[in-house]
C-alpha cells in the first residue's frame, strides 16, 4: 500500500457552490462542479486524520441510506462520511423494508419523505430509480448506484485518486477494461474523465460493449494490449455475472486469458501506471492477484478516498458555504 501523500493537490475549481438538489449522475455536472467536489474532498480528507474524526457541519440534518442492492463498501463509506459530518443517519435495506412486503419504491420514499429527511442516499437495481425519487421528493437524492446507469460518487473518488497521483486528469490515457455493458461505474467514469479531458480507452469482449459508447468520445477496442499501451491509469471492472442474461463469453477461464489484467499485459503501460478497481474484485477473472496486490495498485486508496469524496458531496449538496453562513 502506498503512503499517504502529504502535499495536497491545489484547488482547481472556479465555482464555490453546487447548485443542485440532487446528485443523480456525473452527466448533470459541469467540469467545474466536478473540480469543486474534488477540491472540497481534499479539505474533507484532513478530518479523517484527526484524533476526533468529527465536525458539526451537518448537525441536525437527517440522512437516510436506502440500499436496495447489496453493498459493503459504498454503504459503509457513506455512513462513515455522514457520521464524520455529524448528520443523523439511518439505514434501510430492501430485505428489512416494506419493499419486501410489496410496497412500491415511490410509496416507501413518500413515507420517509413525510418524516422530513434532508437527504436520501439511494442504491437500486433499476436504472433511473434515483431520477424517479428526485422528481417527487423534497429531500436531496444522492445516487449510490442505479442499475447499469451511473455510480457518480465512485467516479468522483476514482478521479480524486487519479488526481492525487497524477496531479491532473487532462491529457492522461485511462484504460477501462472489463464488463462494460453492465457497469454503472463505467458510465460515470466515461462522463467524468472525458469532461476533465482524459483520453479514455475502453476494452472488453464485443458482447459486453455498450452500443454507441464511442459517441461519448472514447476509443473502443477488443484488444486489451492496445488499450493498455502507454496508459497512465488502468481500471478494471468486475465481471457482473449476476446481471448477465444468457451467455456473453465462453468461460471465466477464457475471459481471463483474453482480458484479464496480468503483469505481462501491464508492462505495456507507462512505468508509473496506477491500477484501479471499484470492487468487489474477482481475482483471477478480470485481474490477477499479482496485479491487485502489486506496487501499482491503488485499490485500497480508492476505498479510503471514498469517505472524503462522499463527505464533500454531502456537504456541498446540503448547501456548502452558503449553508455554513446561514447556520
Amino acid at each position: 500500500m502506498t503512503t499517504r501523500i502529504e502535499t495536497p493537490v491545489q484547488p482547481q475549481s472556479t465555482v464555490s457552490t453546487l447548485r443542485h438538489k440532487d446528485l443523480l449522475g456525473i452527466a448533470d455536472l459541469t467540469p467545474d462542479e466536478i473540480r469543486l467536489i474534488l477540491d472540497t474532498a481534499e479539505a474533507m480528507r484532513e478530518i479523517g486524520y484527526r484524533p476526533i474524526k468529527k465536525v458539526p457541519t451537518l448537525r441536525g440534518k437527517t440522512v437516510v441510506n436506502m440500499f436496495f442492492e447489496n453493498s459493503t463498501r459504498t454503504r459503509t463509506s457513506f455512513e462513515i462520511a455522514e457520521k464524520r459530518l455529524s448528520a443523523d443517519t439511518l439505514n434501510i435495506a430492501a430485505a428489512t423494508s416494506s419493499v419486501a412486503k410489496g410496497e412500491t419504491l415511490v410509496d416507501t420514499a413518500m413515507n420517509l419523505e413525510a418524516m422530513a429527511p434532508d437527504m436520501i442516499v439511494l442504491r437500486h437495481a433499476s436504472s433511473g430509480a434515483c431520477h424517479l425519487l428526485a422528481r417527487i421528493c423534497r429531500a436531496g437524492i444522492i445516487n449510490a448506484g442505479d442499475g447499469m446507469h451511473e455510480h457518480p460518487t465512485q467516479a468522483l473518488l476514482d478521479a480524486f485518486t487519479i488526481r492525487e497521483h497524477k496531479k491532473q486528469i487532462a491529457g492522461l490515457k485511462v484504460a477501462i477494461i472489463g464488463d462494460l455493458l453492465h457497469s454503472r461505474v463505467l458510465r460515470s467514469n466515461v462522463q467524468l474523465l472525458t469532461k476533465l479531458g482524459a483520453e479514455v480507452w475502453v476494452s472488453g469482449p464485443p458482447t459486453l460493449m455498450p452500443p454507441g459508447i464511442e459517441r461519448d468520445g472514447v476509443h473502443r477496442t477488443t484488444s486489451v494490449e492496445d488499450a493498455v499501451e502507454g496508459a497512465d491509469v488502468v481500471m478494471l471492472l468486475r465481471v457482473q455475472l449476476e446481471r448477465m442474461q444468457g451467455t456473453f463469453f465462453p468461460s471465466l477461464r477464457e475471459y481471463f486469458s483474453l482480458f484479464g489484467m496480468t503483469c505481462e499485459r501491464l508492462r505495456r503501460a507507462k512505468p508509473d501506471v496506477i491500477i484501479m478497481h471499484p470492487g468487489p474484485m474477482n481475482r483471477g477473472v478480470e485481474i490477477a492477484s499479482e496485479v491487485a496486490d502489486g506496487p501499482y495498485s491503488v485499490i485500497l486508496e480508492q476505498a479510503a478516498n471514498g469517505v472524503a469524496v462522499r463527505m464533500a458531496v454531502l456537504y456541498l449538496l446540503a448547501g456548502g458555504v452558503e449553508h455554513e453562513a446561514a447556520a
Partner: protein
Amino acid sequence: MKRLLKGGRVVDPVNGRDGAFDVLIDGDRISRIARNIPADGAHVIDVPAGFVVCPGFIDMHVHLREPGQEHKETVATGVASAVAGGFTAVACMPNTSPINDNAGVTEFILKKAAEARRARVYPIGAVSKGSNGEQLADIGELRAAGCVAISDDGRPVRTALLMRRALEYAAMFGMPVLDHCEDPSLKGEGVAHEGYQASSLGLRGIPGVAESIMVQRDIALAEMTGAPVHICHMSAAESLRAVREGKRHAAKVTCEVAPHHFTLTDEALAAPVSYDTNVKMNPPLRGTADREAMVEGLVDGSIDAIATDHAPHHYDEKKVEFDQAPFGIVGLETCVSIALDRLVHPGLLGLPRLVELLSVNPARILSIPGGALTEGAVADLTVLAPDLQTVVDASKFRSKSRNTPFDGWHLRGSVAATIVGGHTVYVNELAEGAARFE
C-alpha cells in the same frame, strides 16, 4: 330521420371523390352522395368551411382491457375514447383476462360494446388457447361469435409451426393472422430500443432485428401458405424492408404503424423527462433512421394502416422504476391530430392517403364494413377540422388512462365530429361550427 350534410369537402378515395359533395343520411345508412342534393324535408347541416367529411376511421389495434383489467379501461370508456379520437370502429386485441380465446369472452365484449353505443367494436380472437403458443384456440367458434381476425398480441405467435397452422386454418374463414413480431430471445429483458440512448441510460436494449427476424418468418410462411398475415405496430426499418420485399413477391402481407413510431425516437428516453415511463412501449421508440423509414413507408404506400396500439395503464402502474413499468401508451385521442400535424400539414401525404391509412385499408384487411362513403353503406363518418389548433390535454381524455407522452403537445388539426350509424356520437366543442352535427 334524414340528415343532409351540405357543402363539406368529402374525401372518399374508394369512390374517387375529393371535393365538395353533399351527403344524405337516411337512418343508419348513406342514401346519396352528390353535388347540390335538395333538402327535401331532411334536417340540413351546413358543414363549416374547412371541415372534411371522411369515411369513418377504424383503429385496427386497441386494447380495451375488459374483461379483467377494468381499472385501466372498460369497453365503455374505450369506445368513448375512440369516438373522441374520430374512430367509428375499433378492433380489440384478445389479451384480456381471461384471454379472448372462446366465444364467451367475445360475446361479453360485444354485449358491452352494444350497451355503450359508441364506436363499433370488432373483437380479435386469440391464435392459441390462453395465447400460450401451444394449442390453436377455437378459431371457428371465435369467428362465429364475431371475431374478425386472430392474434396473440402482447406476445408473438410462438413457433413457426403454430404460425403456419394458424395461417392455414384462419384463411378458411378469410381471417388474417395479426402478429406481434418479436423474437423473445433477442428481446430478452429489454425495455428500450437497443442503441446509444438506452445504453447511456443503463437500460437493457431490444434491437430492431428482434422484430424484423420474425417479420421475415411470417412473410415466408404467408408466401408458403398463400394466407394473409398482418404485421402489428411495425417499428424497425429492417421490418419495412422485409415487408416491401414480401409485397414485391406478392405475399399477402400488410402492416400497420403507430403514431408514436413515426413521431418519436429513443431520444425521448432522455429528454424532456429522463426515464419517463410514458415513453416505454413495445416495440420501443426506435432510432431516427427507423422513424424516418416509417414516414417513408406511409408516404410510398408500403405501410397499409395507422393503428394506435392504444394500451391504457393505470397511473400507479406507470409510477414505478422504468424497468418495472408496463409497456404501452394510450393513443386513440391523439392519433388523428398527430397524423394531421406530422404527415398532412408538412405535405408528406394528402388527405386521401390519410383516409386510406385510417379507414380504407383497415376495413379491407379485416374484411369489415366501412372505408367508403358508398350509397347504401352504413353511415359511419369522421368529420375533420384539419386546421384546428389543438393542445393535447390528457386530463380531459375519455379514456380511463392518461399514459401518453404527448400531453401538452400543440398540434394542428383535430376531429370535429364522429358519426356512427347515422348518429352523432361525438362533437368537438373546440371546433367552431361542429355543434351543428349534434
